[in-house]
């Protein structure tokens, strides 16, 4: 049990390696079996997780390069636990729903490797190993987009890779500088001091405000491109537009979350002063993301692009929440990561199913689909409502918490960000109307088949989760809440500027009132 995290990380990778010898016709079954086991393992992890404790749990610490302070250091807390579960879930669902026909073996193996890197990113507390998984996750994605994508797939894949790679290299410089600072702080120069890349060690470090700002900027570039934040978002529409369904699902559901997770895990606790100083700029960017990309989404002609841009818009909400500096906002942000993961994943799957049938994603090709594909339309509708944040769906809980959290920071900005519920409805409903409503005019659509058993089987669990967690989010919110509260405590303790301390304290004191 103590090593469950290692098992979680490496099980898919080993399974992937073994997958090379499996016959082409059995590989999907193999992939599903492996991911089911992985999912069950992650559920076991959840079951044995102590939700009332904010401490890192299931810690494993094995030095790899002790001279340079690199170690294999994994653990989960409330913040990362559910991202791990979402990763295993979405990979499982993705594989079930996968409609790729060619080179399916390569696809399954690639997905398994991707799963390893994604879980690795979320559970690693050693920054270098985190970076390792972070970069490594690009490779399978590159392959998925490039090998099974649309006509512009190579362009999209390379753009995706290079863009994120560039950002993370700048982040790497930041990481190294931070390690150096830690080394310096821990005793002198050149081979005297202790090196460490362990995040928990770094958390103890108090940094000057100037240094914090620079490091914040370095980490920001790495994370912002991944999120992706305006104006670094343009790789995303290409990646989504060209990627096969499974690629888009994983990309939207998990890979984007790495960026926001990075902000919560790194930027906030490591650089509390800088984070507080950057609240307004980040919020402004987030609001631009919310409104601007929502409008861009409205202008799209391709269903998938609408959802791609909507991802950016939703990531704006997540960013906003992460910088609310109170439990509501940050917990909401994390919850919204999960919600967006599942909802956008499901939406991409839905679009993919349509694409499988008609080999087009243009809205102008459709219309009146609700007549021929009622089940499909219904599930699409539910996911759409979750996407626009209808209460009692998952989407609402996160969005509501983010907005209510950020309101304490700035009412005006919150109102601007709150337009998300309007502009989101505009593009989503217009998409729904153009696709599902109206007369069924296109001859080719008249004989479209509704969801088959496999598709239904892959979507229904997501629908159930979306509703379950919309109605009863407590099992997830509770551990998140505990961890976030302790993180905020840490931030307050760490802040160097009294103003920051005051600010975080004021955000936190509002929370304490009743507790």
């Amino acid at each position, binding site marked *: 049990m103590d090593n469950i995290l290692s098992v979680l990380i490496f099980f898919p990778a080993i399974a992937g390696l073994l997958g090379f010898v499996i016959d082409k016709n059995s590989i999907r079954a193999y992939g599903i079996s492996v991911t089911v086991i992985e999912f069950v393992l992650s559920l076991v992890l959840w079951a044995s997780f102590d939700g009332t404790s904010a401490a890192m749990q299931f810690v494993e610490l094995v030095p790899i390069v002790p001279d340079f302070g690199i170690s294999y250091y994994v653990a989960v807390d409330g913040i990362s636990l559910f991202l791990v579960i979402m990763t295993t879930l979405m990979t499982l669902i993705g594989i079930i729903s996968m409609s790729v026909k060619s080179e399916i073996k390569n696809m399954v193996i690639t997905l398994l490797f991707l799963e390893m890197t994604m879980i690795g990113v979320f559970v690693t507390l050693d920054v270098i190993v985190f970076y390792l998984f972070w970069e490594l996750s690009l490779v399978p994605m590159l392959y998925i987009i490039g090998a099974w994508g649309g006509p512009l797939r190579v362009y999209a894949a390379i753009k995706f890779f290079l863009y994120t790679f560039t950002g993370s290299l700048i982040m790497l*410089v930041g990481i*190294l500088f931070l390690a150096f600072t830690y080394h310096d702080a821990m005793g002198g120069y050149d081979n005297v001091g202790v090196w460490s890349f362990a995040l928990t060690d770094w958390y103890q470090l108090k940094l000057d405000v100037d240094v914090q700002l620079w490091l914040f900027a370095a980490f920001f570039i790495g994370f912002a491109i991944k999120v992706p934040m305006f104006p670094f978002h343009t790789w995303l529409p290409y990646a989504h537009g060209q990627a096969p369904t499974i690629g888009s699902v994983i990309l939207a559901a998990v890979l984007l979350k790495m960026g926001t997770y990075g902000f919560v895990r790194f930027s906030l606790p490591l650089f509390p002063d800088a984070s507080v100083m950057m609240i307004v700029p980040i919020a402004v960017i987030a609001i631009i993301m919310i409104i601007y990309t929502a409008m861009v989404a409205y202008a799209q002609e391709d269903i998938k692009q609408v959802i791609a841009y909507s991802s950016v818009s939703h990531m704006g909400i997540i960013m906003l929440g992460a910088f609310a500096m109170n439990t509501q906002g940050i917990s909401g942000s994390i919850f919204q990561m999960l919600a967006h993961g599942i909802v956008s994943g499901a939406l991409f799957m839905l679009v993919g199913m349509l694409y499988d049938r008609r080999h087009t994603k243009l809205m102008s090709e459709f219309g009146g689909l609700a007549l021929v594909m009622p089940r499909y339309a219904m599930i699409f509708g539910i996911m759409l409502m979750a996407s626009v944040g209808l209460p009692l769906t998952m989407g609402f809980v996160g969005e509501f918490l983010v907005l209510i959290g950020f309101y304490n920071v700035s009412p005006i900005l919150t109102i601007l960000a709150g337009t998300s519920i309007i502009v989101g409805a505009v593009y989503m409903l217009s998409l729904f109307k153009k696709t599902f409503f109206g007369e069924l005019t296109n001859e080719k659509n008249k004989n479209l088949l509704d969801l088959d058993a496999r598709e239904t089987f892959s979507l229904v669990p997501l629908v159930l989760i979306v509703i379950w967690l919309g109605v009863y989010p407590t099992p997830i919110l509770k551990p998140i809440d505990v961890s976030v509260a302790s993180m905020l405590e840490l931030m307050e303790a760490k802040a160097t500027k009294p103003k920051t301390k005051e600010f975080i304290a004021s955000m936190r004191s509002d929370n304490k009132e009743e507790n």
Partner: protein
Amino acid sequence: MLGQISITMQELNLQTLIPMLIPICGGLLILIIDLIKENLHKSFYVMMTILILFVDFGSVLSLVVNDRGFFDVILVDGIAIVTQLLILVTSMLFIPLALTSKRFHEFSYPEFFALFLFMIAGFQFMVTSDNLILIFVGLETASLSLYTLIAMHNRSNSYEAAVKYFTMGAVAAGFFAMGSALIYATTGSVELYAIKDVLGERINEPGLLFVIIGGGILLLVSFAFKISLFPFHTWVPDVYEGASAPLAGYMSIVPKIATFVVALRVFGVYIDLGIEPIRIIIMTLAVLTMTLANIMALVQEDVKRMLAYSSISHAGFVMAALALGTTKGNVGIFVYYALFMFTNLGAFTMLWISRHKKRRYSLRFDHPYEKFAGLIKVIPMGAVVMALFMLSLAGVPPFSVFWGKLYVMSAAVDAGYIWLAIVMGLNSAVAAYYYLKLIVYMFLKEPNRDMNTVYYNISKPLMVIIGIAVIVTVTSVFFFQQLLSYVTYMIDYSVI
């Protein structure tokens, strides 16, 4: 009149010479065997060479660290040992590549292996001395052998390559001679430890700074040529293209690492004396090198030329570490090369495996990108292996070069050169493009030929070499600690 000169064997410390004597004797042995019995198969010579190198390897390991020998001409410090080990390992990996399934001209000469061993001896002399004379002679021995080895590939490209390399090498030798003369004129010594003392005294004499720096600059020109820094790198792509693929891979490592050691010894003196301009100049060159080589690599149509530019860029990377002048930077040089070695040699070996006698895809190039189109569908393992090498070169963790990059960048950050680390980072990002380009061709394009055209030149020994390279590239994370601590230990025990 001259009195009796008495020298004890103890004083001479001949032990320090053994590592060099072994390849020399081995080379002579090969020549003699050739005289006695002609037409022995190349596999015999290959194995002989490996055995000789193996013995050499053992003798290097048994050296005492920080030892001087033979009138202090020989200097066995940690750097010398580490470098010799690197050279020998690379050589042992290189030489089985002669066992291709197709015949190539150079391997039909037993002299090839003799020259190869002499070359190694030359490099070993280069790195185990701080006497400029011995460095120069060792350098020239190695270089002359190398020119010949290139030309022996025996096709018009390889002549061209050899001539280009030779001519520029001769000019560089002129610069080395002139630089040494200048330093000698300033200090009255050709031994670096003495030079350091005198320079330390004279550095503040009025009007002398230009001379001191100038001497360093002239030496730098010759080193820059060998290490392939901008704008002295121009030979690299042509020579690599003209030479056989494994030799090109070999050239991207061994001569460079040997020259790095010499540069480290020379500029270590300058940097220790606080002559800042030299550091700035080296750093500028390093930055220019990595950047320009990178952007030129972007537009290449041939994989081998691309790899040539990429190795220029990597050299720039390492040169920047050298300019830092910190222990960590110096450790970084060796760690980087140790890790880079396997990957790069592996990549060149993959080209070697796919080398045809006639150019099938392009009139101009041996290894155009098109050749590798759709490799994943033809030979999946081959494509995966090549992709691993490319990712490693691009610095994607956890493959070997990443750790080198990480360490070098960390060294730059520690030394306060954050801008340098950022430039390194951005360059790695640019570099990723051309490595990806090959991956794109291999994985994402449609194949246009059968399997034989790629596995044309394969043999079991080649596969073994590839296997070793892959294992090291992939598992580098597990031995990085050992490597790091060993190299750090050795560097700590060095003069500079």
